[in-house]
């Protein structure tokens, strides 16, 4: 018999593994099986928050026309999330799934020193996202790490929900640039793709890609241009490699699992099935 703690862990695991756009469906299923809302209510806030920030969900700014990503990088506590572009802080209710409040940026909310770089990266990020992620949004954060180095983090989240046709998908990219002054910049990136197709079945694509590259340093304009040129190159290379992998999986591995037809290039004559065996034995 699983303990209550075990059950909570299992249930939270299920919620965190919900495919993009299907979190509430998984909640409904879990509630239906658990029949103990009190148990779920205890851990729901933390799990909902974990899911939303991991998925980097996109919300509309309450004050402007732009989109903002809800991420761990922008989390201030008390349900508050940074919107650096909008120069504001949003309050996001994870259970309701909506922005419930907003306020102007306070002096302690961002690291002023990094702002010139963060703004330059942000301008490049918008250009890049507009060209390559029609269904996406980007949010760029600036901070300093414990060594005093500048850290600019670019988050891109692109999702399409098509439940009428039984599919959903999300692409998440996170690129972190770490540098001191105009010294060399260390760029690290992570790309995750999750696609779920579920008409008469359950098929999922899950990818996880990591890359690191050094980029020559410079002033905000120079560095941001160089970083995004590198991001474009690395993401395009990854995307091309993924397409190549698809072709190989379909042409080689899939065919090696099961042929389309036997070597005879015809379907089996089941009336004569035993004669096939004789032919094989004769080899």
């Amino acid at each position: 018999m699983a303990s209550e703690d075990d059950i909570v862990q299992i249930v939270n695991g299920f919620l965190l593994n919900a495919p993009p756009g299907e979190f509430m469906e998984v909640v409904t299923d879990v509630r239906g099986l658990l029949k103990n809302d009190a148990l779920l209510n205890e851990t729901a806030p933390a799990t909902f928050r974990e899911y939303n920030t991991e998925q980097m969900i996109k919300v509309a700014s309450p004050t402007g026309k732009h989109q903002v990503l809800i991420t761990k990088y922008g989390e201030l506590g008390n349900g508050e999330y940074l919107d650096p572009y909008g120069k504001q802080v949003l309050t996001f209710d994870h259970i309701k799934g909506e922005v419930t409040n907003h306020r102007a940026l306070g002096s302690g909310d961002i690291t002023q020193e990094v702002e010139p770089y963060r703004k330059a990266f942000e301008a490049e990020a918008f250009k890049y996202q507009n060209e390559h992620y029609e269904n996406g949004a980007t949010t760029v954060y600036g901070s300093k790490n414990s060594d005093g180095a500048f850290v600019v983090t670019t988050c891109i989240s692109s999702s399409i929900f098509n439940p009428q046709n039984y599919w959903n998908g999300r692409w998440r990219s996170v690129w972190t640039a770490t540098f001191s002054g105009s010294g060399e910049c260390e760029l690290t990136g992570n790309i995750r793709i999750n696609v779920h197709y579920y008409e008469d079945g359950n098929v999922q694509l899950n990818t996880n890609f990591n890359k690191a590259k050094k980029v020559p340093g410079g002033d905000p304009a120079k560095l941001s241009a160089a970083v995004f040129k590198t991001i474009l190159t690395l993401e395009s290379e990854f995307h091309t490699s993924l397409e190549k992998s698809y072709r190989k999986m379909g042409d080689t591995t899939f065919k090696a699992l099961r042929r389309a037809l036997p070597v005879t290039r015809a379907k089996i004559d089941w009336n004569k099935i035993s004669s096939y065996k004789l032919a094989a034995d004769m080899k």
Partner: protein
Amino acid sequence: VRGPDTRSVSGYSRLPVQKEEGSEIMQDIECALDLMRRLPPSQIEDNLAGVIDIVPDLTEELLSSVDQPLKIVHDGDSKRDYLICDYNRDGDSFRSPWSNKFDPPLHDGQTPSGELRELEIKLNEAFDIYRDLYYEGGVSSVYCWNLDGPSFAACILIKKTQDHSKQGQPMKGTWDSVHVLEVEIPKKGTAHYKLTSTVMLTIDTNEPGVTGSVSLAGSLNRQEEKSASTSEPNAHVVNIGTMVEGMEIKLRQTLETIYFGKTKDIANELRQQVQSSVLKQRKDLTKQLNSQLKS
């Protein structure tokens, strides 16, 4: 029997609570099956174990309605491998289709009746050949069990894996076929076959720095029924063989389209390799050319 997903979403705070006993159990299994349609297929065994932990009363029903990747075990007596699933299980023992014996041994384990066992042997031989012709390897097993009167049921299982990681090729794959057949004999000389098929397919690769880890995993289901004459000798083998072969050909085509077509197309919609501005330029140019051609 699994049908298309027709659940509507209830809000978090508005899920209705069923009061009647019967409908409560119905709702539970619906929730469990819907959940299994959404959770990552690469973790199917853990997912099922988790659901069973939450609703242990549903254990038997879940084990018989949720397809899991097949396990291969060895029959020391016949010196052959066979596949185990809920259909050849009795308690904690599994029956080999070759020796017809249970492992661990059971002195009163459930086995098909004499005539049905004869058919089971013929089906195993026929599908052994089928497996060799289409899969060029792998393992197959067929299990039959009696239903009311002359009716019976059968399941045809096939498993094939592909793993060349030792030869430096990162791509791996597994194919599991589970075909469950209900055969009704309405009158002597005819039979009505109801086939429910699932193919589970997993293909993955891992190339750090190039593609990272890529996993395509899941399953597709399909159902079919037909009536056929059983007057010819070996009619059941011919009818069942033809039906399963046809079904696998259809499923293989759909799997190919969904796995290597649809999921890739979706990924390409999430991120466009060609810049939006270039795509727009091309569109505008096409429009211009079209209007010039018309005038």
